[in-house]
């Protein structure tokens, strides 16, 4: 799966897509592929304030349970409720249907510090 160019990527394998002040956040194709079949996602409550780098949830797969880290700071405005019953969407469609949450960012600059698609691809390859 090609890594989309319309967003930024963190070293902990989350992606961020900015639309004005709203950032949609998910995990990369590389991340879902490494985790294997995802069976459960724990997401934060709407309204929660997140700091860049803080834990905001957990993804559980048949192989592992991994923490999710906020790639940007901000307030959670929406979470993807569909994942409650169909967490496997993250495996099949990590960049669109498998989004995790939307955050009202406190500073757009934070997102710019993250990697672009090309940089992330080579980062993921080396890992």
């Amino acid at each position, binding site marked *: 799966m090609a890594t989309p160019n319309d967003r930024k990527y963190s070293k902990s394998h989350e992606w961020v897509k900015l639309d004005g002040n709203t950032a949609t956040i998910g995990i990369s194709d590389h991340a879902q592929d490494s985790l294997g079949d995802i069976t*459960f996602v*724990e997401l934060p409550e709407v309204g929660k304030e997140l700091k860049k780098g803080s834990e905001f949830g*957990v993804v559980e797969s048949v192989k*592992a*349970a991994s*923490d999710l880290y906020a790639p940007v700071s901000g307030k959670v405005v929406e979470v993807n409720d569909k994942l409650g019953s169909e967490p496997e969407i993250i495996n099949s469609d990590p960049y669109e249907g498998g989004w995790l949450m939307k955050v009202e960012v406190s500073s757009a600059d934070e997102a710019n510090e993250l990697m672009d698609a090309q940089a992330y691809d080579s980062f993921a390859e080396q890992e």
Partner: protein
Amino acid sequence: MNYISNTKEQQKQMLEACGVGSIEELFADIPQDLQPKSFDLPAARSEFDVFRHMESLANRNYAHLVSFLGGGFYDHYIPAAVDALASRSEFYTAYTPYQPELSQGTLQAFYEYQTDICRLTGMDASNASLYDGGTALHEACQMALSITGRNRIVIDGGVSPIYRKMIYTYAANLNIDFAEVPVSHGQSDRDAVFGAIDESTAAVVLQNPNFFGVIDDHSDIAAKCKELGILTIQSVNPIAMSVIKTPGETGIDITTGEGQPLGNPLSFGGPYLGFMAARRKHVRKMPGRIVGRTVDQEGRDAFVLTLQAREQHIRREKATSNICTNQALCALRAHIFLSLMGTGGLTELAKLCLAKTEFLKQRLSSIKSVEVMNSSPTFNEFTVRLPIDAGEVVSRLIDRGFAAGFPLGRYYPGMQNYMLVAVTEKRTKCEMGTYAENLEDVLWP
């Protein structure tokens, strides 16, 4: 496993590696009164000598007393089949399997045990058991703190004082704000409970029947808490569940209890059995092992340990709890006991306990200056007020062959003359009669 001894020199090296100067320093965190007086063991003795020594120690127990002692642990009959089946080596040897799925029989027994607990309590999901009723209640508090992200726990005064002490001991180094609400006439004081809860409260902890044996309907407390996003935790007596309103029907979020009454003997504090069940939505925050049923690659029924990402061997420091086993043999005994009793048998047992308790209440209230407290219904147990110190009455009745009851002054200041009296199906009319006569004789010689 072989005993591997070490030399003085090796001990010195190990202590150095730990950065302490002496063995005493190594154990410095253990309170002084709990530390052994000496690490020097006496010289070796023959098997027969040791046997005789242990026998003389065992004979110091008053195991022959006719028991009216309860306080959370009860003298119920244990059918012989419980011992016979639970001590089969297939269960006994593989009781805590490290490659669990190899022991399908053990997992099936736990799965069935979990089903028992869910049916008894009316809850959605049970774990495969915890150490005992008190630690289970502590785990439930931790669960509520983690689910709500809040910091305050309100505990009803009807919760066993032994459990409360255990909760505080476990939480001694955690920054948790506990509040206790005294009971009113032996029951949960609604106004006081509602006055004690606020937006920082994670849970209200209740017990039914409570420590005084009083049966309550906590539905109103559960409903009010639900409005405020506060969880309700209820510790229950498993045998009473067959005749009184269950936590499921009451609207409780997490239920726990002591499983000893289900086929486990009274033995100086354990091993006992903690059970826990919760609403489905809280299952991922539940501590301990959970057995699930699935199918293998050929479509046959198979049992597995499930939701293991909660557990510390997967999630390390982020585990829901540091419990990494279950009370396997005690849970197995509970399951065998319940299977033998069946729904009808268990209900009959509970009704027998209720009826005999009422009989003894009436008999004791006929004794001069003995007052049976609480007009509300009780299960298994009730409180009496005596004209003299209850501890004194208990020690005098031991000489006459009775464990008379639980002196409440031990945990409730000002209740020196009060005693909890427990009655199970094992107590005959004749035993209750002689008990009452002896009590009367001790009070009014």
